[in-house]
């Protein structure tokens, strides 16, 4: 039993972290909060990949001339680039939030939807008259 827990506890804790991120994305109306939730989700995916790469008794994959066991370097490469791409896309998301705030005066989902509906009603009235 303890063996089974020790073999998988990392995955479980990372999945819990992932689900906290998902809950923030679904339940919070504030757009900045939503992006932070996405970031938490993203970080937990990174951690999942790196956990898969870990080898017991292994070291960081840098050759020193001694015979050593290395952790799997391939996920490290994938995640290393993904982190920098992640910050670039997060910046794009925040830029969209800034523009939404400039257009609607709010970054709360409810307010934005209400403003959209009010505008639609005005458009319908104008079309009817």
């Amino acid at each position, binding site marked *: 039993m303890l063996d089974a827990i*020790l*073999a*998988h506890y*990392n*995955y479980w*804790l*990372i*999945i819990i*972290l*992932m*689900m*906290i991120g998902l*809950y923030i994305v*679904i*339940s*919070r109306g*504030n757009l*900045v*909060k939503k992006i932070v939730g996405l*970031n*938490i989700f993203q*970080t937990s995916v990174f*951690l999942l990949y*790196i*956990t*898969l790469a*870990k*080898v*017991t*008794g292994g070291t960081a*994959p*840098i*050759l020193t001339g001694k015979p050593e*066991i290395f*952790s*799997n*370097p*391939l996920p490290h*490469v994938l995640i*290393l*680039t993904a*982190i*920098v*791409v992640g*910050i*670039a*896309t*997060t910046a*794009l998301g*925040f*830029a969209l939030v*800034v*523009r939404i*705030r*400039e*257009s*609607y*005066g709010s*970054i709360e989902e*409810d307010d934005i939807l209400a403003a959209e509906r009010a505008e639609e009603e005005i458009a319908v009235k104008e079309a009817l008259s």
Partner: protein
Amino acid sequence: MGAEMITIVNIVLLTMLCFSAVAIMLLRHLFAVAALTGAFSLLSAGLLVALDAVDVAFTEAAVGGGISTVLMLGTLALTQRREHRPPRFSLPALLVVIATGGALIYATSDMPAYGDPNAPALQHVVPVYIEGSRNDIGVPNIVTSILASYRGYDTLGEVAVIFTAGIGVMFLLGRRREDEDDEGMVRHGPGNDPESSEPEETAS
């Protein structure tokens, strides 16, 4: 460092990560959320070092602790500093999260054990890369040799994505505010700050 020690470090860091994520969820002051996001990145960088991914930890510390916190503060300066709605409990969201999380945890039973040296991911190309990095390329950092040489196409694509995201931000925010006032894009002037008109703000 022994394997037990690493296990303890992993559990402690992952638990702290979960707690800071919950705190981020519950806090309404977005400035505090930005500070906690920086701490969250630092904790995950520490965890990445414990998992032998030094290159990744380096990147995460520089990106998450530095740039992303600054970007988030910049966004807050341009928008608002508080979440206006109080955090509300959402049953559908909880159900979705429990269903997804349950399915994922059920799926982990098929995953190789943590730290298993015979995991399938280690058997296929990785030994070739490690030997090649030693003999053919002669670069001691295996991550660099895979990143730049074996997976050069991949990295070229990633750089193109970063380039595209930079261009996107330039298009979205590059022009000054005054240009947009002429086009009638801005319905609410900069003086109309919703924070000042919120009655609940004074109470909290």
